[in-house]
């Protein structure tokens, strides 16, 4: 893109308006149809998966007889039944849909059982008796590191000479800690409905963030051209990254069963199977050494961030890229060596989860800041501020992209002010002095989060807009709706281009048949990319319509204005938008257009690990207060003040919800959501009874969220807005920091469950 039209001004119901989501009324009345709510087609069959109970071993060919002996079983599909390739790899290769010869993790799919009913299919899957000769399994990051078991080569970002700077620093510290993974627990589990058609066609309704990948992987498994497969997604009941790559294999399994039987097949994973068979947020192990001076300035950092990738690559390359590019957070450290290890373990392949390695990366610098502050007897927020990028320190990240130091300082100043930070410090000190068994603590966080896909080619989007002759408008784009409000935001963009009310825009399900070759709705880029693509499509049609009006009225096209459902020229010529649409049709002018966008200016040199991979950064800050019971380790977040930079918000209602929700999800990751694998590598937290997701009582009673005002994006983003999906998840790091502040500990692994807090209180 070389030039974009100037953004129109915000209107009451257009850009920047706090409009409710497109599906609001349908959600509140139960009319919104999720995939499992669609009327079932005649002849529908149901599929279920047989999963490996063993983490690593040799698998004998599976005997289907025990399932086939049961009533209502139609087929048992094994690797040999796959007409195409048994490979569902997203980025790498050779990640089997169904294990063949070798099992690599507990929960790995072994066979697809197809039944007349879902109950029959589930009973059939449970009846299978896989023969697996166990082999030694790698079940810890330490073991993977010791054996140098990687899913990809280690990555390193270096600047200066970290070893020399460490040696020369007045003070040195070393640290080690870990952060757990996180189950997505989208309330709507993984589901797909595959409908076989004529000539080898397959239509797949999928709850996916990435319809194009569903199309590609289903075609790969079926052994057919992409053009034979159509993937459709109207909405998801939550995604959070868990339906970026994992939805693809679920859809491919349904498509395989539909191809094999010639009948429609639905595959809806039970919650237990979903939690056993789909990837999570990557757990991390951190080891670091830092050199600093007496003022708290961190001079050198040598760190290793080891990610548990699970048994295969999946999206791990992007996750470790984001982890090491975010490991200094909002801070500057002159001499650094940051290594990322992508460890191969016999665990489910870990995957995208809101933040995509960014939240894990940011924990590193926060741990260093906390320890340096402790060593110097300074508050952590002072040490962090001493090291803020920009100002007296360097503004460039170690990989060569500049941060905006003024925004970093501004968000922190505003969060501090909102929380009345100094007064709160005094109150807490008084409270702690008066209570023998309760401790309060204060914690802060300042984030800088880079926006763009780490894979440069993915930063593109398409849209398709039709104007009909009654003036109604249909919008389609490559982005998917998962509750983040993307559809209303993009509709607002199109409405503002045409100068019509947003209600005139008919939204439609994302489909690979309408907009092809799309990127996943991920990396917070949904509205950035699809907003511009839809803008381009709508602007093309508006340009043609303006030419028609200009000719009709004998005025220059530049004088034609589109506003409030009217098309006008000067003060005395006007017609309804629909009237002009009809006129354009009568004059044989096309009222349909595709739009395309690619993010400008981004680049990355993989060999040098340098470049400017992000279109821009989002910033945010948090100040939170917690209380800890010293006798039990139980804790609560009492108050949180959050300030998030969304540029010039496209829709403040949607953005505030995203900030709040991301904070709550981050709070869960860091404090209560604990994945627990047993000694045999089987995940034993397979439902909300054992895996604790934040509930209504876990949200701080005081939760104040504010969008940074008067801060339009500097980059040429859609209407100068900024992405919001992932960055505010990092704000919850303030809770982890506050817990450390309350109990005065050096090391607190995440999730900081009551057990871990109690152990930290008791010194080990």
């Amino acid at each position, binding site marked *: 893109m070389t030039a974009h039209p100037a953004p129109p001004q915000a209107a009451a119901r257009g850009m920047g308006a706090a409009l409710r989501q497109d599906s609001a009324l349908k959600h509140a009345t139960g009319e919104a149809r999720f995939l499992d709510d669609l009327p079932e087609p005649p002849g529908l069959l149901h599929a279920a998966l047989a999963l490996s109970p063993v983490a690593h071993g040799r698998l004998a060919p599976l005997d289907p007889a025990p399932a086939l002996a049961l009533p209502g079983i139609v087929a048992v599909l094994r690797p040999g039944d796959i007409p195409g390739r048994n490979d569902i790899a997203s980025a790498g290769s050779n990640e089997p849909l169904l294990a063949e010869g070798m099992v690599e993790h507990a929960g790995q799919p072994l066979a697809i059982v197809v039944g007349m009913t879902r109950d029959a299919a589930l009973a059939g899957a449970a009846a299978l008796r896989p023969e697996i000769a166990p082999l030694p399994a790698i079940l810890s990051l330490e073991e993977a590191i010791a054996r140098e078991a990687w899913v990809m080569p280690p990555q390193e970002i270096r600047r200066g000479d970290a070893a020399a700077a460490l040696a020369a620093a007045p003070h040195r510290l070393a640290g080690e800690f870990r952060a757990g993974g996180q189950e997505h627990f989208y309330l709507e589990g993984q589901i797909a409905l595959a409908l076989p058609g004529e000539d080898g066609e397959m239509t797949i309704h999928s709850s996916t963030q990435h319809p194009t990948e569903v199309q590609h992987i289903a075609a790969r498994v079926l052994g057919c051209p992409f053009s034979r497969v159509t993937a459709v997604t109207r909405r998801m009941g939550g995604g959070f990254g868990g339906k970026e790559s994992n939805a693809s294999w679920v859809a491919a399994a349904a498509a395989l069963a539909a191809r094999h039987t010639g009948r429609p097949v639905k595959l809806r994973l039970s919650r237990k199977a979903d939690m056993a068979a789909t990837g999570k947020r990557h757990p991390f192990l951190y080891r670091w050494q830092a050199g600093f001076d007496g003022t708290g300035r961190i001079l050198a950092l040598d760190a290793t961030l080891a990610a548990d990738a699970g048994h295969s690559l999946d999206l791990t390359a992007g996750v470790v890229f984001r982890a090491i590019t975010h490991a200094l957070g909002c801070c500057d450290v002159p001499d650094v060596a940051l290594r990322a290890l992508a460890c191969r373990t016999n665990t489910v392949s870990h995957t995208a989860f809101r933040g995509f390695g960014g939240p894990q990366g940011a924990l590193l610098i926060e741990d260093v800041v906390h320890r340096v502050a402790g060593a110097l007897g300074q508050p952590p927020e002072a040490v962090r501020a001493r090291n803020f990028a920009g100002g007296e320190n360097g503004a460039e990240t170690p990989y060569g992209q500049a941060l905006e130091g003024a925004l970093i300082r501004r968000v922190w100043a505003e969060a501090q002010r909102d929380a009345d930070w100094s007064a709160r410090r005094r109150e807490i000190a008084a409270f702690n002095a008066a209570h023998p068994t309760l401790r309060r603590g204060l914690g802060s966080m300042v984030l800088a989060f880079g926006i763009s896909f780490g894979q440069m080619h993915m930063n593109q989007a398409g849209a398709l807009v039709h104007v009909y002759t009654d003036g109604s408008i249909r919008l389609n784009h490559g982005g998917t709706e998962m509750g983040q409000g993307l559809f209303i935001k993009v509709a607002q963009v199109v409405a503002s281009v045409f100068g019509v009310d947003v209600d005139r825009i008919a939204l439609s399900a994302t489909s690979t048949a309408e907009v092809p070759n799309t990127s996943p709705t991920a990396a917070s880029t949904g509205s950035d990319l699809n907003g511009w693509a839809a803008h381009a499509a709508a602007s093309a049609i508006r340009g043609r319509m303006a030419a028609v009006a200009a000719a009709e009225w004998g005025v220059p096209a530049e004088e034609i204005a589109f506003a409030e459902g009217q098309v006008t020229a000067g003060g005395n010529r006007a017609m309804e938008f629909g009237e002009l649409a009809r006129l354009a049709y009568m004059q044989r002018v096309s009222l349909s257009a595709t739009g395309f966008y690619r993010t400008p200016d981004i680049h990355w040199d993989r060999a040098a690990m340098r470049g400017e991979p992000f279109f821009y950064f989002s910033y945010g800050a948090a100040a939170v207060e917690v209380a800890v019971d010293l006798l039990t380790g139980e804790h609560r977040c009492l108050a949180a003040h959050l300030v998030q930079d969304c540029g010039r918000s496209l829709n403040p209602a*949607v953005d505030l919800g995203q900030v709040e929700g991301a904070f709550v999800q981050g709070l869960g990751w860091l404090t209560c959501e604990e994945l627990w694998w047993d000694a045999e590598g089987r995940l034993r937290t397979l439902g909300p009874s054992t895996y604790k997701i934040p509930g209504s009582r876990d949200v701080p009673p005081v939760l104040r969220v504010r969008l940074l005002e008067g801060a339009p994006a500097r980059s040429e983003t859609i209407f100068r807005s900024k992405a919001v999906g992932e960055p505010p998840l990092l704000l919850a790091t303030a809770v982890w920091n506050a817990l450390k502040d309350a109990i005065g500990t050096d090391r607190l692994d995440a999730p900081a469950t009551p057990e871990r807090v109690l152990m930290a209180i008791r010194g080990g």
Partner: protein
Amino acid sequence: MSRVTLRVNGEERSLELDPRTTLLDALREQLQLTGSKKGCDHGQCGACTVMVEGRRIYSCLTLAVMHDGEAVTTIEGLGRPDALHPMQAAFVKHDGYQCGYCTPGQICASVATLQEIEAGIPSHVTADLTAAPQLTAEEIRERMSGNICRCGAYSNIVEAITEVAGRPA
């Protein structure tokens, strides 16, 4: 197979079903009332919450045959887009949802929560068990703790309930 008659959203509905059929499956698969969602199918997430005889219940944890002759109210029975129940309207006004999957259950639980407070039923956080429970945010959060919202819209949900209860949010 068993016969069961339910009064669903004011209408008598006679069903012939396997006695092991949950109320949720009967609603979703036999009556095509798909507003109630299956989130975990184990009574742990709350997405399937409906009201039976005016009391909220996880419809995935109860069998349809256990409710013969009883009145069942689902999200569809509370209101429609052109005639919203006040709680539905408040959820829309306060953005008490994101993905919407937990929303029908949240709204049914919210309606029941206010009725329970009104009826003087105490909760775990009610300090005085002999006095009428107070309509505080703490009471609402406690009573809504059986409904998970993975998108984290809890604060807005509490605001919506508080508004319907007649107190400033």
